[in-house]
């Protein structure tokens, strides 16, 4: 039996009195897109930062590719990648220079060819020689995605990839996300506030609130469990303090 690509078990993070992540557990199987859904302060970004090794958990464990992240962080990170709307690539460098730097860090073979491939995939090949800082928000997000796809990651973490994008570009990003899962079998952890993203892209959803997991399942299972008509109305209900029992 194959192991999950990512196993998060009883993960807790405390910052003094604050507990942004409070005992969450979930798994991602190979080729699965798992949504991490929750209002601001639900603990999504802290959870992602722990999976990236940027924040150390207070307790619990994270296993990626059946390896302990705490012990084999660098070996694991080589096979992962990450894209967040809150980070940027250095704005003074040209697009190809940024991708060359990260391609070398991730030891991407045939780097020039791969850079051309990801730029084509995200439809920004014409921007290859442009200064990264002069790109629009949509172009910049797609450049971040190019960086995240360079090493053909087996596990990809996308932190609100469609935030601040217009509907057309957001749609392209969703399509690319599904395409790389379908073509490369990439497992994806996808956080978003955008219910359309979650509905359209994710196979299952982890619904978080105040650091805890309320429910894990498909969108239909979640709606059925909470007796709501849409994820959006459920999101609003939970965010405004409506009941929700952690699993």
């Amino acid at each position, binding site marked *: 039996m194959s192991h999950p690509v990512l196993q998060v078990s009883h993960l807790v993070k405390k910052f003094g009195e604050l507990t942004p992540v409070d005992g969450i557990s979930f798994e991602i199987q190979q080729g699965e897109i798992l949504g991490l859904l929750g209002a601001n302060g639900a603990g999504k970004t802290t959870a992602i930062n722990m999976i990236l090794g940027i924040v150390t958990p207070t307790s619990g464990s994270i296993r990626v590719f059946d390896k302990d992240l705490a012990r084999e962080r660098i070996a694991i990170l080589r096979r992962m990648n990450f894209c967040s709307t809150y980070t940027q690539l250095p704005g003074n*460098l040209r697009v190809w220079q940024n991708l060359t730097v*990260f391609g070398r860090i991730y030891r991407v073979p045939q780097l020039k060819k791969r850079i051309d491939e990801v730029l084509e995939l995200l439809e920004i090949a014409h921007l290859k020689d442009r200064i990264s800082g002069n790109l629009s928000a949509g172009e910049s997000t797609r450049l971040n995605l190019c960086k995240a796809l360079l090493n053909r990651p087996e596990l990809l973490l996308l932190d609100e990839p469609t935030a601040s994008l217009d509907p057309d570009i957001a749609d392209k990003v969703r399509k690319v996300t599904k395409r790389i899962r379908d073509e490369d079998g990439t497992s994806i952890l996808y956080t978003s506030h955008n219910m359309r993203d979650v509905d359209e892209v994710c196979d299952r959803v982890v619904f978080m609130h105040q650091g805890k997991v309320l429910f894990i399942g498909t969108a239909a299972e979640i709606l059925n469990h909470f007796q709501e008509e849409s994820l959006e109305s459920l999101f609003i209900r939970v965010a405004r303090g409506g009941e929700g029992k952690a699993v």
Partner: protein
Amino acid sequence: MTFSTIHALVLRNLYLYSRTPVRLVELVFWPLVDLLVWGYLTVFLQKHAGDSFPYQITFLIGAVILWDILFRAQQGVALYFLEDVWSRNLLNVFSAPVTNADYLAATYVIGFLRAAVTSLLLSVLAIALYSFNLFELNWSLIPFVFNLLLFGWSLGMISTALIVRWGPAAETLAWAVPFFIQPFAAVYYPIDALPAGVRWIAEIIPCAHVFEGMREGLKDGSVSWIDLGKATGLNVIYLLLAGMLFVRVMKTAREKGLLTKFVSQ
């Protein structure tokens, strides 16, 4: 430690400098101002002192050049981190397969390159403008300069560790840390010129022994092995302590989520 990772991290900074020539101003402009001010002060003193002019004063020009080696090496390490903060690239780097050793090694290389560019330029200008030739020290220049680089790297690691620990508000430490020690570093005057009560501070600063040793060397061409030995021994201790501090602070940063705070600024 991986060569390809270090190469990539160095490349990132080289691209940065080739893309934005205005950054070269920082490498050239301030050191040049220092050289002109101290150089013409030396010329003025020389004219008024006549034959009794002590050679140590000529060394003011050398001191400007050598202090800049230390300062640029320190800046190479500290500013590398800040460049990632300013460009909101920090999480991309620290979520990539980059070890502390890779990161530090890349900053050392950048520090070395910065120091090399500035010191070569200033050395040539010092010969042209003031007939002061730092290369009169011949081969003994190498171990002394190497010691300045080592101490610059240590100060760079300490600066970065303090910035990580105290957050973006502490950015100014990247420039301030070398100047905390400068009054005791015997850059422009010998250790003996300091009040007796604070000479012990100079004794435990590696670069103070470098400057003492180089003053001796320029005076009579001899190599002060004692000063060189003291500087090297102290540098080994400082490098170890600074490295341990950096690793410890990065561990604390991961525990307290400090790296993510740079992103939310």
